[in-house]
């Protein structure tokens, strides 16, 4: 049973990213705290989504009793181990930065005698209030991070004793998690991202965020799988497995585009002031290039690059398309969070990139660390043979 060994380069990369991130964040707090909180929220959510997708992918493989991915299952599981860290960071960001991040947390909005009294937010008070919000964040943390930790425990147990007992335990927990994920992925998206624009609402928002989360996570999973394969940890993962990951990336990019467009078109068509405010801001001259770029990268690149069978079977095209898609979906989250907080003063600079590097470095370190403690290939998984002989 082969474990991953953390190389020197892994450490240099993760700690380098963290160090660069700390510098960026420190610079941010010294110059523009609001912008720094906003980019911390955005970066944290971006990486949290990737980890959450790892958990989602891992669990639905068990719910569907799918065999093809059995050999690479430890990659999404290790990705999910970032969830405890991300959930704690999210809670801290909310506790210390809520005044800058979420307009609805300001107390004077709910005071009927105050000139700032906001009738719309007053009506949403039953849902959007700080105690309930913190309870929800803790609840997400328990569900997401708790599942990730428990599933890892079962996986370690499976490595140790073998048999199918832990497979069925994992399967049971996976079913429970998937039901809870269906709810929490939507409500989490409303809480963490949509409440940035507390006056605005979109009924499609939960699904839209879920689709973006899924694409990003799959892409990261594909890239990490290829990385481990190239370092000789996956001797039996071949182009068929890469092809299937590529298919997922392609399909869910189209799904993301579908939801992005469905949300945009209905709001654009109906042209109701309270709905259109969200897009009107993001179509201001300062933000319009990014608004268009976001759509172009996240739709056109995967659509054209990953459409043919041959390109999905080549690691290099998957890597190139994947890298661009990660940038694209980073822009997508950026467009949701930053203009909502900063208005047209939202920029992409050292603060935003630094914050993302900080969380990315942390994510990579947690990933490699977790990978080094479980077997890279779950040799006691009952469907491992099926995965080896997967043919597409």
């Amino acid at each position, binding site marked *: 049973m082969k474990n991953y060994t953390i190389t020197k380069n892994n450490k240099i990369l993760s700690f380098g990213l963290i160090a660069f991130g700390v510098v960026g964040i420190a610079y941010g707090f010294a110059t523009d705290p609001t912008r720094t909180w906003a980019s911390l929220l955005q970066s944290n959510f971006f990486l949290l989504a990737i980890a959450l997708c790892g958990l989602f992918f891992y669990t639905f493989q068990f719910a569907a009793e799918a065999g093809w991915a059995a050999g690479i299952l430890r990659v999404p599981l290790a990705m999910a181990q970032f969830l405890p860290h991300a959930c704690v960071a999210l809670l801290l960001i909310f506790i210390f930065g809520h005044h800058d991040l979420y307009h609805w947390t300001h107390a004077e909005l709910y005071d009927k005698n105050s000139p700032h009294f906001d009738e719309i937010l007053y009506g949403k008070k039953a849902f959007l209030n700080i105690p309930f919000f913190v309870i929800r964040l803790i609840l997400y943390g328990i569900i997401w991070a708790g599942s990730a930790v428990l599933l890892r425990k079962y996986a370690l147990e499976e490595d140790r004793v073998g048999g199918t007992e832990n497979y069925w335990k994992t399967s049971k927990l996976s079913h429970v998690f998937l039901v809870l994920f269906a709810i929490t992925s939507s409500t989490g998206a409303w809480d963490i991202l949509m409440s940035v624009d507390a006056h605005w609402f979109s009924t499609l928002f939960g699904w839209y965020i879920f689709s973006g989360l899924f694409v990003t996570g799959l892409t990261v999973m594909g890239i990490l799988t290829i990385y481990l394969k190239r370092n000789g940890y996956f001797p039996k993962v071949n182009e068929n497995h890469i092809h299937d990951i590529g298919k997922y990336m392609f399909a869910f990019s189209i799904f993301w585009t579908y939801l992005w467009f469905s949300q945009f078109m209905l709001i*654009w*068509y109906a*042209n109701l002031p309270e709905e259109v405010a969200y897009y009107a801001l993001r179509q201001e001259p300062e933000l319009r290039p990014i608004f268009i770029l976001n759509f172009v990268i996240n739709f056109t690149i995967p659509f054209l690059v990953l459409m043919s*069978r041959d390109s999905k079977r080549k690691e290099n095209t998957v890597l190139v398309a994947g890298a661009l898609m990660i940038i694209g979906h980073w822009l997508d989250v950026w467009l949701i969070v930053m203009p909502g907080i900063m208005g047209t003063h939202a920029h992409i600079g050292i603060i935003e990139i630094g914050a993302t590097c900080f969380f990315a470095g942390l994510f990579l370190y947690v990933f490699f660390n977790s990978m080094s403690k479980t077997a890279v290939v779950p040799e006691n998984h009952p469907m491992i043979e099926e995965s080896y002989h997967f043919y597409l």
Partner: protein
Amino acid sequence: MSKYIFAVYNDEDVLMQNIKPLRSQGVRIKEVFSPFPIHGMDHLIGHKRTRIAICSFIYGAIGCLLAIWMTQYMMIADWPMDIGGKPSFAYYKNVPAFVPIIFESAVFCAAHGMVLTFYLRSKTLPGVTAFVPDKRMTDDRFIMQVECNDASKKADLTNLLLKHGAEEVKEYGK
């Protein structure tokens, strides 16, 4: 035109296992008929990968362009429409309203074009007599269509097929 004989198998695993040795002995397999799809069969009998995906892309692109032209002519040029209370009458400003139509048209053309191409290519257009070497191929038998141009070698080939798991070897329709 090539002549063929048909080897009947009653188990797809036996059939799959024997294809490789048969092909290595120079037996040319044209086609395999089975009541259900057998995964990996086309690869085994040496069929090239289908190019229908390329056709599909071309049909989809045609459908896309067709709908772009159609919406431009109908909604902007011939009878300008006030879309969503935004009377801009410019195609690029109204294009979100046309995207669903463009999308549906691309899907429509790709799907129908693909079906027609498939029918034409496999010669199963409505009205054409179906190619059925043995009626049991729709029930529980697996039929391998083997090229046999040289009548003198037919007996040898038949023996070879029978040795490699075939239940019987027959000619078309008999």
